[in-house]
Structures are given as C-alpha cells and as structure tokens.
C-alpha cells in the first residue's frame, strides 16, 4: 500500500505516470493552484483515478507563490500520513516553481522518495533522496536547543541564560552551541545593551527544520 502525493500544474500528464506506476496505490493527494487551467487538469486527474478505483484528494492552494505557506500545508498532510505508517512517494513535477520547490523541500526534510516526470518523454525519474529525517542530522540535544530558540525568537538569550532555561551546564551548552554555529543553524550577535555579551539566535529558516 502506498499513498502518492503530487503537485499539479496545467498538464495532467505530469502526474498520471506516477499514478500508473505506483504499486499498491491506496490513494492520491495532489496540490494545484486556483488557475482555471489547473482546475481543468485537476478534473482530468480525478477522472483518471476514478477509472482506476483509487480515491483522490485535490487540494487547491490559495497562494501558489508562497513557498513557506505551501511547505507548511504539504508537510502537515505528509506528517499525518507518515504517522499512519503507510509508505509515501511524491511526484514533484507539476505546478509552479514554488509548488515544486516546496514539495521537494518537504521530501528532503521528511525523507520521502520523490520523482519528477520528464516534460517530453513522460518518463518518471527518481531523485537521489535518502529516507531519513533531515533534522536527525542534529543530535537530540542540538535539536532541543534549536527548537527552543525558534520558539522563543521574540526573546534574546545569552549563552548562560540559555543554559539556565534548558537546565544544562554552561560548558555543555557551549559545546552544543559551537556545533550549531558550525552547522550554520544559529548566529551570535552583539547585545546592544551590553557589548560584552553575545546573544544567541536561530538563523532564519530553521523553523522549517525543527518546526
């Protein structure tokens, strides 16, 4: 049993090869814009699924040009399915560049096998992704620190305040912060109130990693 996700633009041919090729296809969820041609394509994909007896859910994106909003939406759906334990695959070929990028980003972060369909040959091409959660490349402690910084963006923390807030020894915190700094996940910025102190903050975009 497999659940197929996909992004759809104006051409149903970009998604249909994956519907055909997925073994044990349980259902299809795909995302499209509110453009009239996308809606027409949606109708054709749904009709094709009906002939195969496969349930299909079409999700119309209110803004097909907002990367973060699309990632958030797709990721929530993907995580729901992952929690059910059913294998997933994603066809990222259709839709706007942002829809396709958002789908790829979700696949990278959640470790979902992804394919695209060649524009002319309609051949399905698998992408070299590994089935792993990208955030797992951080240690559990590093993830916890980063998550805390992301969730408390409005507050500024020094290293010792952060150690206190998370109940970690200062030296341990220093070690983890160095690791996070090396990986480009956090920044140290000067405290405008006290030039001797440095404030720690998560760099933009890390919400996508630990969110």
């Amino acid at each position: 049993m497999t659940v197929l996700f996909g992004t759809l633009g104006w051409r149903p041919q970009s998604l249909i090869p994956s519907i055909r090729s997925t073994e044990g296809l349980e259902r299809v969820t795909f995302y499209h814009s509110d453009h009239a041609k996308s809606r027409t394509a949606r109708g054709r994909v749904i009709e094709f699924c009906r002939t195969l007896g496969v349930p299909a859910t079409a999700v119309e994106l209110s803004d097909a040009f907002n990367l973060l909003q699309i990632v958030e939406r797709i990721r929530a759906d993907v995580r729901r399915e992952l929690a059910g334990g059913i294998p997933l695959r994603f066809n990222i070929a259709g839709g706007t560049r942002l829809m396709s990028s958002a789908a790829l980003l979700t696949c990278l972060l959640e470790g979902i096998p992804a394919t695209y369909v060649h524009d002319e040959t309609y051949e399905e091409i698998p992408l070299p992704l590994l089935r792993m959660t990208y955030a797992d490349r951080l240690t559990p402690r590093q993830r916890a620190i980063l998550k805390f910084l992301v969730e408390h963006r409005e507050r500024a923390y020094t290293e010792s305040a952060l150690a206190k807030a998370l109940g970690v020894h200062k030296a341990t915190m220093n070690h983890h912060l160095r690791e996070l700094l090396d990986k480009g996940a956090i920044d140290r910025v000067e405290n405008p109130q006290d030039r001797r102190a440095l404030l720690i903050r998560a760099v933009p975009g890390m919400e996508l990693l630990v969110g």
Partner: protein
Amino acid sequence: MATFGFDERHVLPALRLLPYDELVLLAGRSSLRTKGFARLRALEPDLRAVVVDPFDLVRCLEATCDAIVEAARRGGSARVSVSGGTKILCAAAMLAAFQEGVEAWYCDPDPIRLPVLRGVRLEDAVSDSARLVAGLLRGERSAEELVHAAATHGLGRVAAYQALKDLVRHGLADQRLDGGEVLVRPTAGLEVHRAHFRIAARKG
C-alpha cells in the same frame, strides 16, 4: 551561485541581499544568448557561467555539486540562490545544496533561507560499509551471497548485514522472501545514487 533562466529579475534580489566575491550562474545554453544574461554580464563582468541542461535534473545536480566542490577547492564557500531558471534547475540546485551542505536561499522577491545545515552532506548518512555493499549490489541476488561477497572486501558478517539493513532503511535496496531465502535488489533510487556516490569518491 545562482540559477538563471531568461529573466535576470529572478536573480537580482539574491545579488542585492547575499554578499559574494564571485558570481557563478547555472544556466542552459540558450539562456546565455538572452538580453537578461547580457544585462547581468554588464553588472558583473567577471561572472562565470556553468552550462547545464535545464531539463535534465540529474545532470543539473551533478553540475551544481561540481561547481560547489570547485568553489571549495579554490578556498571559498558557496551560497546558492535557487530562484531563477527552470523548475528542474531550481530543484536540482536545491538538492545540490542539501547534498553538499551549503547555504541556500530562495529570493523572489523576499529572501527565504532554506534550512540547510552547513557542512552536513546528505550522503554522510550512508556509512562506508553501506556504500561498499551498495557497490556490490547489482541486480537481484540472495542476501547471503551478498554478505559473502562483502566478506571478500574485508567486511564482517554482522557489519555486512547491518549495512544491508541501512540500505533498505534509506530506500536504496528492497528485500523479499523467496522459498525461505532473502533476496535483495537495488532500488531505482540506488541507481541514481550510484552516480552521486562516484562524485563523492572522485572528490575524496
């Protein structure tokens, strides 16, 4: 490093927002004949263009990874903007940034930093033992045979089985039972990875 199609307006926000010493454009051959490219060249006379087939994701990925490695070899670090060019080029550049662990941005028009961890290569998650076993896995064969083959390369039985388990977990190998025997075969994903593993070996 920026992906480029025909319209320089998808590249300019990144040039304004991200500091750089050298500009490398990843673009299709026909993009280099456009007015947009000429205008970018006028702004950045020293820009270097890496020609890719913007409709072939695997080739775009290899070219982008090579360009990132080349930048590192020359002592710099790369930062990738994935806002221009075809969907395929954009996806390939994004994938390359995650593969190689370099900063990536989508700047069209607002800057969005993608959550890439610097220096963390995607394929570092695959152990050397798993890479060795992956190299021996061509077509369907019994797991026992594969483990024997790995032993001739100095990999112990337990380590070889663990490596095989890792390959299955990462979606690089499939296994099935046939008459009480475990058969394994490479997935389509592994075939794509083989090319990339070779890039890593070449760099090493």
